[in-house]
């Protein structure tokens, strides 16, 4: 007997929640980014789980797309971070509060 999809979903949910907390709690922009990746991974797990449940590969295709988007995001995001770092010599998001001023 295989493991019920529910367990995978529980795992995905927990990981997603951890990702959210990480984004909120951590201050290093790069680290925050990694938590975002974690959340994306959790979602990927959900997709795969549902794909199995439905008996199709559509969910897996979606994972594929998420991966592409994540790659693009990482590329641009890290570019921005390194740019900010060049100007501010910090990757602490708390110091990027120009909105306030």
């Amino acid at each position, binding site marked *: 007997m295989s493991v019920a999809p529910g367990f995978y979903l529980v795992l995905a949910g927990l990981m997603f929640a951890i990702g*959210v907390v990480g*984004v*909120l709690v951590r*201050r290093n922009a790069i680290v925050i980014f990694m938590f975002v990746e974690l959340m994306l991974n959790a979602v990927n797990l959900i997709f795969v789980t549902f794909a199995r449940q439905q008996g199709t590969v559509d969910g897996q295709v979606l994972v594929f797309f998420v991966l592409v988007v994540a790659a693009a995001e990482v590329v641009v995001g890290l570019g921005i971070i390194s740019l900010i770092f060049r100007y501010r010599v910090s990757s602490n*998001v*708390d110091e990027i*509060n120009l*909105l*306030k001023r």
Partner: protein
Amino acid sequence: MNDLVLAAEGASADHTALAPLIIALPLASAFFLMLFGKRIDRLAGVIASGAIGGAFLASIITFGSVVAAGHEAAESHRFFDWITVGDFSVGFDLLVDQLSAVMLLVVTGVGTLIHVYSIGYMHGDARYSRFFAYLNLFVAFMLILVLAENLLLLFVGWEGVGLCSYLLIGFWFEKPSAADAAKKAFIVNRVGDFSFLLGIFLLVATVGSLSMVAINAEAGAMSAGVATAIALLLFGGATGKSAQIPLYVWLPDAMAGPTPVSALIHAATMVTAGVYMVARLSPVFEASGEVALLVVGVVGAATALWAAVMASFEYDIKKVLAYSTISQLGYMFLAQGAHAYSAGIFHLVTHAFFKALMFLGAGAVMHALAGEVDMRKMGGLRKAMPITGTTFLMGCLAISGIIPFAGFFSKDALLAAAWADGRYVLWAVGVLTAFLTAFYMFRLYFRVFEGPLKVPEGVHVHDVPPTMAAALIPLGILSVVGGVINLPGVLTLEHFLEPVVGEAQVPEGAIAWVLGGLAFVAGALGIALARAVYLSRASSLRRRKAYSRAPGLVDAARDKFYIDRIYGYGIVAPGKALSSYLANVFDPRYVDGIVTGTGRLVARASENLRGIQTGYVRNYALVFLSGAVVILVIQLVRVGL
């Protein structure tokens, strides 16, 4: 109304033919001088005088044809539509009848003389051509006023002469007093015009037209109350233009303008517009019962006396003449209040002669004394300036009502009319004023022209140049013989004007001689008193004694009985305070405050709400998350937890 106009047109063909030309000549000259005056410079005076002279000739021709047409001479013609909306329509309508013919002669005749005089008087002024342009423009507007067939066109002339008066009083605008006086004249006149305008509205609402012919034809059908209201509102306009109580205050100040202006505008023509208007619309005044006429008569009499008192205490020769003008205008209204419209016009004509003469004489004195106007610094000038002195004396005798000068006949005519109408109190005031008039005029004459020679230092006295004499001498002659146009018994002018203003009541028999004699005696007494106080040996002692009896009164009179101050504190100051409050406090703080207050409320709310916006991305993310969580929880609850 159309029938009447048609009837008038049918009567004779062409005396309105020249009317537009009479207006156009000075108008064209005015525009020409305004545009090109700088280039032709010296020629400006000649051109301007020529234009008026041409208008004068045309007026004579028109007058001749009116005389020839006899009783039914009135003729009007619409040259173009002006304002036509709905059933209201006025056009550029001109009316020529006996009354306007007489006025044409006065305006263009006296106007021509004064233009000629100005050539000499204004010689060397920096804005020489401009002066003549304004003067021409004034005459053009005055002619529009006189020839207008409808009240609105009359109003054009009415305001137009006011504008020219403003421009000419303020001609030497570098002097603050001149600029002030010009503004004051215009604004005070505006107050009168405000009343006049209301009268026009009421007339439109009542008669449905502003045509003089139609108004006068329908005046009889008006109810007394409406007619009274109309008459009083129009008369309100006249008190402004003709400087009657309570709006006379601008005229003495207006003397800041060049003297020919004072002669032309503030003595001979413009200020008589009110008198002319009342005569022109006499049926309306008649229709009011007695009320409106009584008001006209009382205001006229009161002004006559009041201004005569003021004149008796004034030292500025031009201001004496200004108060005298006010007083004489009061006379004219006094007569009109007694139904004697033609007597009012008669006095208007003679007054135009002698008052213009005296103003021009005063101008000659100022010209000779480098602009000095204070009579205390003058004396004995007749020997140095024989032409001026002699002609001035003519004027003084005329205004004092001495037989056989022009003023006697006209003054006699109007006092007699007041008596004949049963207005004995007004008659008495008139006689008293006649006495005062003689007194203050000869006070002026004796101080300036008689006695030992006294002139301001460093002034070389000279008599008038030829152009100025050319105006003084004809006017002097007219002052002497001007009375013949309306000799008692023959009464040419009154008969001539009858078709327009109706028949005047004239006292009959012995009473007429008694009244005339009394007026003459009053004048003679006034001259005698003036001689006693100002020319005889003990004069200065007598003056001091008189002053010691009532010092307060004299001081008050010299301060114009505080009228200007009362107007200043009573009307101008509160008005200024109100405006200033509105402008500096009310509008920005309250009216704008409500609006910007709304804005500020939003701004303040935002300011407070802004505290939430920490600027930290993570904080925003937290809020974002809480939103997401809330939605999740809601969804779960809905599904049925």
